């Protein structure tokens, strides 16, 4: 990006400073998120870091806590949910205790977000160009003319053809794929360090999905953007991400580089997900399933939370908390079998 018109840092009054790598954009430590006004814990001890220029994917079934985790990182937890314990730090600053006002300064200008249904985040009666220009005027103090010019450049940079024409169109005149590009243009309009994308391609056609994934990768390459990408589809995640965190029932059960996870999965749940995921040659005809159901959100389980569905469970799995152990370069697994092999080494 040529122009850096971001407001001078630091603007987070009173935020506590953390030590961390210079490139570390987002860091979650032992994050616990409670739901139903504290009655249950849906995210239990998530540790995750995202560096500049890196795409990290969160994958898991619905209810596994992946969306709550990224909402906690954005400071937009739904009503009744709260960070119970642990820390979220953004660009080295602790943000769990930020005021609403400070969050608003971060949103849009330093963190961008896109979600599954772009149409519901846009005003249906205002042209998409004005909605983007408004962000530029409010967040960056740009004048009307400059904002229009910049908006058209941004539309072009996210691959919208005829950006001047798109500027004057309302959401209903654009297709789902184009709207998602508009949302991405708005999310990156103030050149944020972090983009959180929660199932942004789930509602799109596969050909459009492939284009949006390419766009995200290109934005990462061109701008050094850090991307936190959430999907229930392991195939999409492995296609896009550098690192993957696999969620199961509120915990990360395995995390590591994408290639390592897909070629040498160490957690039985990751293996199961890989077996049921789609492959590109289409000729495989067996339809694998994962037996059983995931536990209720926030269920109290001693030991491994996957044990009840695990094909290789042993009595030890239920005996106490299973720790996440390193099994390779940046590769961590929460499984008694992996822990045993690490100790044996």
């Amino acid at each position, binding site marked *: 990006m040529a122009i850096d018109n971001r407001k001078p840092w630091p603007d987070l009054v009173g935020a506590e400073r953390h030590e961390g790598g210079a490139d570390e954009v987002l860091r979650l430590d032992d994050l616990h998120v409670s739901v139903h006004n504290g009655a249950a814990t849906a995210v239990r001890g998530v540790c995750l870091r995202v560096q500049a220029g890196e795409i990290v994917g969160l994958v898991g079934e619905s209810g596994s806590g992946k969306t709550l985790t990224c909402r906690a990182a954005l400071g937009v937890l739904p009503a009744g949910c709260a960070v119970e314990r642990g820390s979220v730090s953004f660009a080295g600053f602790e943000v769990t205790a930020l005021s609403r006002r400070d969050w608003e300064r971060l949103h849009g200008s330093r963190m961008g977000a896109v979600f599954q249904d772009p149409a519901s985040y846009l005003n249906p009666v205002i042209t998409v160009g004005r909605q983007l220009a408004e962000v530029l005027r409010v967040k960056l103090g740009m004048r009307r003319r400059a904002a229009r010019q910049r908006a058209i450049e941004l539309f072009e940079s996210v691959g919208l053809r005829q950006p001047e024409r798109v500027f004057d169109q309302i959401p209903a005149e654009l*297709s789902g794929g184009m709207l998602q590009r508009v949302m991405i243009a708005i999310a990156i309009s103030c050149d944020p360090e972090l983009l959180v994308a929660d199932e942004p391609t789930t509602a799109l056609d*596969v050909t459009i999905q*492939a284009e949006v994934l390419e766009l995200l990768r290109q934005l990462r390459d061109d701008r050094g953007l850090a991307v936190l990408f959430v999907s229930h589809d392991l*195939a999409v995640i492995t296609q896009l991400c550098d690192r993957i965190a696999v969620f199961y029932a509120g915990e990360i059960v395995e995390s590591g580089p994408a290639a390592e996870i897909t070629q040498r999965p160490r957690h039985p749940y990751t293996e199961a*997900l890989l077996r049921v*995921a*789609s492959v*590109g040659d289409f000729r495989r005809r067996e*339809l694998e399933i994962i037996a059983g159901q995931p536990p209720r959100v926030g269920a109290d389980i001693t030991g491994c939370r996957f044990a009840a569905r695990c094909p290789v469970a042993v009595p030890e799995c239920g005996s106490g908390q299973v720790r996440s152990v390193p099994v390779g370069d940046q590769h961590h697994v929460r499984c008694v079998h992996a822990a045993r092999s690490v100790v044996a080494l």
Partner: protein
Amino acid sequence: MTAAPAGAPPLLTVESVDVTLGRGWRANQVLSGVDLDIWPGEIVGLVGETGSGKTTLARTVVGLVDPTRGRIVFEGQPISALRRRARRAERRRGHVQLVFQDPLRSLDPDLTVAEIVAEGLRIRGEDDGDQIRRRATAALAKVGLDATVLQRTPGQISGGQRQRVSIARALAVEPRLLICDEPVSALDASSRNHVLRLLRELRDSLGLPIVVISHDLSSLAGIADRVVVLYRGRIVEDGPVERVFATPRHPYTALLMASAPSVRDDRPLAPHQLRRSGPGPVPQDGPGACVFAARCPFAADVCAAQPPLTPVSERWSVACHRHEEWGALAPSANP
């Protein structure tokens, strides 16, 4: 299991069907010249993007939409020509059952599972309560649901279970043809495979022909015998699933395959190799041009006219002027 013994007549024939929705300036031709046969016992995957007309085709087949041209013949009877009372009677018999997309919205939230599954039988005019209950329970058993869900409402069961209730509702009236509109698109991978397996078992055990509508080829890979690709209201390719997936003859089919995400690095072509690059003008994109020309990287002068769906091999048809040439023009596969 392969379907269609040679010489058997098709169960369903869709004959050069056009469908226009809306009137006057709003008129929108959704289907153009669709020809499709469904044979007994086969699973046909109908695939296409949003707005390609796949749901409209399903609605036309069950008689919810009237074709503006062409006809629908089911078991030798032209059902699109039936009017009023005869049409209603045919619909009530429920020979062709449609499982709607998104069961959360298509199932009545105030009815219990038992009532939902029994409703079709009541509409057909059966009045023996015991027998209706028995058949509803039997239909639920066929989809792998036991009596514990009978008294729950759709809001109280999981997404995969809801989809199976929808299928059970259709099965209760013993249809001769089942059409499922996006049966798995809202489900995660494990429940998706569960439902697909169920459909395959229903075909194997009941000999029930099934049309599965999907926007995503990968969810047809495990079950379909035949794949039919729709693009902007026209069938562009129709052929046996293994052969189409091994060597797609239409560039759009190839693009769909290349775009499908995969956990392995096993796709012969990357999507960008099958997309038109650059915003340059598309000389072939006039009225009457091939529907795919505007997006096709291989479009040539000949593509200024819509190609008909032409047989290229046994039971394999393609609507592309350049189906024999484009493969060689595609950039070479990933090294």
